[in-house]
């Protein structure tokens, strides 16, 4: 079934003119060259790949699959959101009206802008502009941190208002006047509590992803300053960019679903 020949790179690869750097690393890592553990990276090309193209495609596919798993993971929460919003539309309306739309909007723009700076960082890595790569990564980090700080203020405000289920829930004890309004729509404060459970789970999981993202951006800034992404090794930045954009996109869904539904009256029509 198999005829064996000396190790030659994939014949298809020959049609693609390889940059000089890659060609050099190819010869340096021919399979019969002596190895250490056999896997440490001495250059951009890892030992077990045939060429840079294969490595790049593998990394990109791997990251997209990972983004798929993230979508499925958040998907479970989106399902819970859909179910409970369908069951208790007025509770979601009521819960959403307690959120700070101004801060939410500011945060949305902050995060969108951070996606822009991340895209620019990827571009700078591609054109080997180390100085601006570092600057854009730092800017992305600052914007991401700003998002989390604003989010922290929002959560603190919720906590002081007594809107945190399981920890600090007393809002309706202090505002009993609101209770008849709830009863009018056939819901209880427990149903509103459910909105806040969903809200904290979704924004909490999102924030956890932000923290991981910040750690990665910080580490990549350090590596970029050391010049690790030069010499044809710019792909890690692109991969990080994909992750960052995912966090951004998830927020783009969370923001209207959580913040903007108070303007929509489940009973019929908008304001």
């Amino acid at each position, binding site marked *: 079934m198999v005829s064996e020949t000396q190790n030659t790179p994939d014949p298809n690869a020959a049609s693609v003119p390889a940059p000089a750097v890659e060609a050099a690393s190819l010869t340096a890592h021919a399979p019969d060259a002596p190895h250490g553990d056999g896997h440490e990276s001495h250059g951009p090309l890892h030992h077990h790949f045939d060429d840079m193209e294969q490595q790049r495609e593998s990394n990109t596919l791997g990251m997209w699959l990972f983004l798929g798993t993230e979508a499925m*993971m958040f998907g479970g929460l989106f399902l819970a959101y859909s179910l409970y919003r369908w069951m208790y539309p007025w509770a979601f309306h009521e819960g959403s009206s307690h959120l700070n739309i101004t801060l939410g909007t500011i945060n949305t723009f902050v995060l969108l802008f951070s996606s822009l700076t991340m895209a620019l960082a990827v571009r700078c890595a591609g054109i080997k502009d180390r100085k601006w790569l570092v600057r854009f990564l730092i800017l992305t980090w600052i914007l991401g941190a700003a998002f989390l700080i604003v989010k922290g203020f929002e959560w603190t405000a919720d906590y002081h208002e007594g809107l945190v289920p399981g920890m600090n829930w007393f809002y309706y004890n202090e505002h009993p006047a609101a209770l008849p309004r709830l009863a009018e729509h056939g819901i209880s404060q427990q149903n509103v509590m*459910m909105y806040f459970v969903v809200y904290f789970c979704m924004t909490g999981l999102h924030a956890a992803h932000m923290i991981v993202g910040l750690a990665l951006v910080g580490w990549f800034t350090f590596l970029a300053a050391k010049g690790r992404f030069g010499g044809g090794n710019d792909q890690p930045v692109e991969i990080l960019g994909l992750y960052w954009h995912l966090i951004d996109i998830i927020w783009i869904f969370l923001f209207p679903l959580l913040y903007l539904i108070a303007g929509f009256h489940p009973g019929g029509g908008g304001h």
Partner: protein
Amino acid sequence: MRTDAIEQPPPPGKPDVTSVAYEIPREHYLNRDYGWKSWLFTLDHKRIAILYLFSITFMFFLGGMAATLIRLNLITPNSHLLRPQTYNKMFSAHGIIMVFFFLIPSIPAVFGNFLVPMMLGAKDLAFPKLNLLSWYLYMLGSLIGIGAVTFGGVDTGWTFYAPLSTQYAYGNVAITIVGAFLAGFSSILTGLNFIVTIHKMRAPGLTWFRLPLFIWSMYATSIIQVLGTPVLAITLLALFAERVFHLGIFDPKMGGDPILMQHLFWFYSHPAVYIMVLPSMAVVSEVIACFSRRPVFGYRFVAFSSLAIAVIGFLVWGHHMFSTTQSPYASMIFSFLSFLVAIPSGIKVFNWTATLYKGSIRLTTPMLYCLGFIGLFAVGGLTGMHLAAVASDIHLTDTYFIVAHFHYIMVGGATMGYMAAMHFWWPKITGRMYNESLGRAAAILLFVGFNLTFFPQFIAGYEGMPRRYATYAPEYQFLNIMSSAGASILAVAFLLPFIYLIWSLKRGPIAGPNPWRATGLEWQTASPPPWYNFDVVPIVTQGPYAYSPEADELADAQADMTRAQVEYELTRREIEGHHQKEDSTRGV
């Protein structure tokens, strides 16, 4: 050639021709370096597979011990051995360990890890570091998990249904959930690694339809792992938040819906059944073709049936909830879709059987396991039909019928496949052969013991014996004694390979690169394989399973030639040695 030699060992006194013909290669992946660091920090897929093999075998024996206690307790109707609470903890421990820490990682993490790169002609998986990370996540998760179920215990069953798990259950529910969560991530990383490797790292000439069916099945498994497991992860996180922080997503007091938890749970856990059984089907396709000396009948149908099982498997989860508040219309749809899974499963069973037709069948150990698989999987699948039909399912829900059904799939199917893989690729992994007669004896014992254990449970369940109770009505005692007797045979059938496989490591005859004369790429390299799998990158020019009488004849002739050469060499050495002896006595 080699197989003949194993079946008829050379008479004592005569030199073992085969062990001269084949030598263990001087340097291979096992002896390349020693020391704990070279194992715990290894990035080699074969070594990581060995790490998994050890840890998974350990988990299997732990889960087996829990099963032993369950079966001992059920010999008498009144639970003489365990207190009811302890019994609940035992079946929970059995389920949690066997599902999350044994069955789900079993074949993908051990044999998939070892074989996927070799079958593709690649040097390693696409992401070796991720692969090692997945083993560490698995270890962390499983150690936390077994710690939680042994010290303190969990009594929710492996399904963690809310609100039992979130509000009423005793014990370490939250810690066990963390363990299962981590093991889930390990599974995601393995699946992700396989998909990328299969897409991007195939040897030159290895097109999709030249891939072994093992790879197709593993690919389908990986899709389920990547798309399903994250949903389990978020379910477990929500359960954790509800139990620890009292954030009740599934809490009826807040208007939450516990059935939502079941939907999310089974959205993963039904496809997870296919994570367990698809890899076994992968093994069966390889073994059946090899020991029938025929190409697998209807290659493309078998390949696509794996994908079909993965896809349809995602659409049937509602059949676990026929007896809940799920709408009867939803139940009808789920019932219909569940019947659909029978089509790709049937394609596989019939195509394997058609492969046997007119084949020159060799009843070696792996083949016996695989034939056992086909029979037991058919029984498990057909009883699944009873459970896919809403009306009969409502009668059978939460009885021993269910227990028997899924053990036919998970032990009769998945574990049989695991044992088949162990025996088929053991010579490749270790370079040595095990004792073939003991192997066959173990395979037959497993089949007999398994049926004796689980067939009575179909009857008990059909007659209404409920599952998950420490006590039962006395009229079921006879069936339960049969079951426990069968379980003791099962225990021997699992301990036996443990002994002779370890024995073979030192004393087994040397296997040579291709003891079964199989066609896969993994057999084209030395056993045990060198560090980078292949000394030269293989180029593939034809499809898998190029088995034919002509090819076998040619191989026989070649083997005769090798044997004659060895014979010649031995005779030459003997005569030369004789001369040297004479010389030395003459004092030259």
